């Protein structure tokens, strides 16, 4: 009959997920309910189709790229830890937590670097660590649809790559990407705050 209890004990491996992502118990519970709600047929994992059926995501010009980021390495099943790991990139940065961090531990998923890495791989279609001009064109095409001509799009792509490219290899590497965005307030632009 499906009576939902408020116990986080239902989530498998909840402690390790909490440590890895930094989400609070309450947030994890909400995300778990959301995961279950998206899994309409009750398989226990999410497929691409489950995400594609979210209408507000399907009309997003970068919807397909975002869905791709949940299914790395061609996998077809998204389990709850994987789901939360991607969402953790968008956790707002907590200054206090940042100060207390143990430098020996791996960087938290919602650090500035990791947020930038997430944005970078939305562009980097073949995951080779560089955004080529061709990849830039393809992502631009996704964002504008049929509204812009090929020439206009090519000049935009050329300009963007030229501006960011420092070593002149005709592609934007991750370091060049971060450098061109160093003044940007990434934390605020890529954060989703989950209300208690």
């Amino acid at each position, binding site marked *: 009959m499906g009576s939902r209890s408020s116990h986080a004990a239902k989530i498998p491996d909840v402690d390790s997920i909490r440590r890895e992502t930094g989400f609070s118990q309450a947030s994890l519970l909400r995300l778990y309910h959301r995961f279950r709600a998206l899994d309409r047929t009750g398989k226990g994992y999410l497929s691409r189709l489950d995400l594609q059926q979210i209408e507000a995501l399907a009309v997003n010009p970068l919807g397909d790229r975002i869905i791709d980021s949940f299914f790395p390495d061609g996998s077809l099943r998204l389990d709850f830890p994987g789901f939360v790991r991607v969402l953790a990139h968008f956790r707002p940065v907590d200054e206090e937590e940042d100060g207390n961090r143990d430098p020996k531990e791996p960087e938290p998923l919602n650090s500035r670097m990791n947020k930038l890495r997430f944005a970078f791989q939305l562009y980097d279609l073949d995951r080779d660590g560089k955004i080529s001009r061709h990849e830039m064109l393809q992502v631009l095409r996704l*964002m504008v649809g049929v509204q*812009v001509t090929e020439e206009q799009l090519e000049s935009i792509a050329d300009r963007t790559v030229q501006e960011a490219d420092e070593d002149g290899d005709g592609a934007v590497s991750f370091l060049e990407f971060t450098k061109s965005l160093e003044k940007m307030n990434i934390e605020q632009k890529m954060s989703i705050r989950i*209300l208690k």
Partner: protein
Amino acid sequence: MDGAELAGQVLYTWLTLVLGLILLPSAFGVSLGISEIYMKILVKTLEWATLRIETGVAKQSILKNSASVGIIQRDESPMEKGLSGLRGRDFELSDVFYFSKKGLEAIVEDEVTQRFSSEELVSWNLLTRTNVNFQYISPRLTMVWVLGVIVRYCVLLPLRLTLAFIGISLFVIGTTLVGQLPRSSLKNLLSEVVHLTCCRICVRALSGTIHYHNRQYRPQKGGICVANHTSPIDVLILTTDGCYTMVGQVHGGLMGIIQRAMVKACPHVWFERSEMKDRHLVIKRLKEHIAHKKELPILIFPEGTCINNTSVMMFKKGSFEIGGTIHPVAIKYNPQFGDAFWNSSKYNMVSYLLRVMTSWAIVCDVWYMPPMTREEGEDAVQFANRVKSAIAVQGGLTELPWDGGLKRAKVKDTFKEEQQKNYSKMIVGNGSLESELD
């Protein structure tokens, strides 16, 4: 011997009671007031339970049940504001942040998915199935809950099953008998009597309490009745107050038997599955049906699927292309007494009906609304939206532009194209590309 006799006696008294107290009054459309007494007791019990839970909650701290508040902090600024960067307004590498944030927000919470699960209650109504966040409060409450379980499963359920069985059998027999008569006004009258009696019995089988408002606007002959869809019970609720022509697919099994029986007594419009796909054929047949203005009004649910009764989704334009007068009807269920929403991906028809029969009751309001016709220069889509807004306002439901049938299909590209257009205007419409100096 004694055991069998005793069982026989019990069954006999049971059936006589049912006949006398429920069936006969239904046939004459008279109410003995038993349901009203039941509802009064129920309301008092639930109020008492709510008070107990609230006082219990004050002592402990529980997660706030935010049924209507969103779970993430939303920044609803339009695309222009969300994208403005440090420089002018050409394409920037950072533009991707805006879209990815919006996309992730949609993954965490969207308007539509929540409409396909049952509405969350503000306070518990003593049914396990609605127990979301409510914890153990006191032994007295638990006892009342146990009593409730016994009453629902051991007293109400058998009663309701008996009634449903009798109702459906009478319906099939009645319509078959009436179907033997030649077409005449007597046949129509008898068919109405059979329909109404059996529907009333079936509504009692669900302990349904229905309030009809504005009965002066009841759909007239030759019109089309349009309503929001929450469950198959909607049909029952509307036909208790008047006869309609049904439109739909031919089913197999029990539904098929009922459909074939209905068609004998009065003309309904049933389509084969293959015919349903041909929109023009469907519209043609319906047009023919209302052309005479003498036939019973057609009943259509333009959403095409069951929604959870908190919102109204896109009305498919097909029903609004037929022409004729549209009579909108708004149906709103009260979730406190029983959840009428049919989540077809989670429950099949039989488990759904069992769930409904083991709830307290089905309480709903039906508002008949003044008829609407398509205005000059208005196309079917605009007309459909106009009717949808009227129904949403009347029933107190939210209005959503999305297509409810989407759980089975893909979203139309037009919505995505709008976003792409907006974005393109911003990065190209500036004209700063041409004039840039190297």
